[in-house]
């Protein structure tokens, strides 16, 4: 009996290969994501101005940060923006997906129309949006030219309303993508379930409310995650549309962080705002990831 219990070379290699293949990605993630997060966290406790330095200042940056009115504006704005953006995008996306799923003629044409905004950066569409929302040359003027003289749409110029114009543009950009996700979810639902529900006497409305929408739960979750991280990261949208204005009424955490880190030479404060943003993202993502990965195990 040839009693060699040691695995042969090829087998050992095959055992290690998967890990070897994954290792670079993992290492890169550890360095470029977590290493950099740690770096930022350290910076947030230093007196870094234009370039990083490591003069320890304790919690000073955080104290300064929370004392800044602009940061508080940014927090309020992101709360308003994220809520409206996620809710409206989901609603519009779902509505379009459900309607598009009714064996619509021309779906092949409509779908790319709904989807294409996702393909464009706001560097590209920012100016067009700015114009469109501008009362002097945009919607307001056009509607007035059409004869509705009293029409008024001056949100982008109004410190209290400007944040809602950002919601409009953001919804424009991503609701098509959300639509695609829901559409995929809808197409994945077993037709027999729908037939069964119809035989049970459910009206169309009941059918969707009681059967279809609950079945779309995974799509809802994916949409929520994608939308919430887009909301928190939203930067070029704000820059292109309002530049943070009127005044600083549309300041958001991402624009705030960028300006303090790079244009105001207060890298320490910028880093502390970044840390708070990251903690917020983690607070949303970690429970989701945990639940998601736990279930699939």
């Amino acid at each position: 009996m040839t009693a060699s219990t040691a695995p042969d070379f090829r087998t050992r290699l095959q055992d290690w290969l998967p890990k070897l293949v994954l290792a670079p990605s993992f290492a890169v993630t550890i360095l470029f994501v977590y290493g950099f997060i740690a770096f930022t966290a350290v910076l947030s406790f230093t007196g870094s101005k234009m370039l990083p330095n490591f003069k320890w200042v304790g919690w000073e940056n955080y104290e300064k940060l929370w004392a800044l009115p602009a940061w508080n504006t940014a927090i309020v704005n992101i709360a308003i923006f994220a809520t409206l953006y996620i809710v409206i995008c989901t609603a519009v996306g779902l509505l379009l997906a459900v309607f598009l799923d009714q064996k619509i003629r021309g779906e092949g044409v409509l779908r790319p129309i709904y989807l294409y905004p996702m393909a464009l950066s706001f560097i590209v569409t920012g100016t067009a949006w700015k114009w469109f929302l501008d009362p002097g040359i945009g919607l307001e003027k056009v509607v007035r030219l059409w004869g509705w003289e009293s029409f008024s749409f001056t949100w982008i110029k109004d410190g209290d309303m400007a944040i809602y114009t950002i919601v409009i543009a953001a919804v424009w950009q991503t609701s098509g993508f959300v639509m695609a996700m829901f559409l995929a979810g809808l197409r994945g639902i077993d037709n027999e379930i729908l037939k069964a529900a119809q035989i049970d006497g459910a009206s169309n409305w009941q059918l969707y409310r009681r059967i279809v929408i609950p079945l779309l739960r995974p799509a809802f979750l994916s949409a929520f995650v994608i939308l919430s991280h887009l909301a928190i990261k939203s930067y070029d949208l704000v820059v292109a549309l309002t530049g943070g204005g009127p005044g600083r009424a549309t300041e958001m955490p991402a624009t705030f962080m960028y300006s303090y880190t790079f244009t105001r030479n207060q890298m320490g404060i910028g880093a502390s705002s970044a840390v708070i943003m990251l903690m917020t993202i983690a607070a949303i993502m970690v429970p989701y990831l945990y639940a998601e990965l736990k279930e699939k195990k």
Partner: protein
Amino acid sequence: MGFLDIRNVTKSYGNVEVLHRVDIAVEEGEFLVLVGPSGCGKSTLLNMIAGLEGITGGEIAIKGRVVNGVHPSKRNIAMVFQSYALYPNMTVGQNMTFGLEMHGVPKPERERALADVAKLLQIDHLLDRKPGQLSGGQRQRVAMGRALVRNPDVFLFDEPLSNLDAKLRVDMRTEIKKLHQKLKTTIVYVTHDQIEAMTLSTRIAVMNKGYVQQLGTPKEIYDTPANLFVATFMGSPAMNIIPAKVVLRDGVPHAAVTDADGAERVLRFSQPSLTAWEGKDIHLGIRPEAITDPEGADRKSGNIQSLSNRVTVTEPAGSDTFVTMTLGGRDAIARMRADASVAAGQSYDFAVNMDKAVAFDPATEARILP
């Protein structure tokens, strides 16, 4: 030393041992079936033979060569999967020769092997199709063909018939049996279906909770189950298990069964050795076919006992009629000839073949050996 030796094999995931000291020696040409409920460890064992899962303890040897740690492809085995695992992007022909290609077999040789096997399985006309275009039965054949082409030392089957409908399953079962008889290959076959196990195997390993409960020929397993689990798992309808007490009548051991109304029925054992169990509780095991109408009783039996009882349900199954009664507070099933005239609610005199009865120790659940 067998052709395929499984020696003291254990498997653990972390601290949890899922397979406990399995010891099986399979001879060349043998058809071993691993049967058991899901989660019993049978698939794990099969995967370990295949090399798809590591071995925690013990050894597996094929043709005398210890294969622990040897890559699946170097064990000279072939496997047929439950889902057939046909590569969806390849044609049937490519599917079947993929293994040979991977092993560096030259093309002409591959073509020859493919042609032979395709002819054997009558799938020549399917070779250019994709798996998606095949019916369930055809896929099953292709999956087997893929294994056959390799001409391996050991064939491993992982519940290959469970995705087929009832009729096809029976047909394919016969087909596999024929193939085995023709090719005399060594097969390890996993199933949870005890009929497949009985019909196909030359030997069966009944598994539960990571233990081999019993290893034996189908007849051994059926007639002399090692314990309550094997007794109830093998056979359909399952063996009737009735709580009873051993009493001595005229120095001969009898099983006393007490009904809910307090009435006691007594059935004489054929095994004198049960005298030692006098006064103790046992579980009496009688297969349905050992409880019959008096005319249908086994004439070779030396110990037919009469049992009068009320019929609760009758289920005519065409060839037989199954009759349910209450015995010792439990449902017991009798298997009558189809023309036995019996109706629900009636009282009836059943004939019990006590030669086929077995007794189990309630504490250990093991069969009390004669």
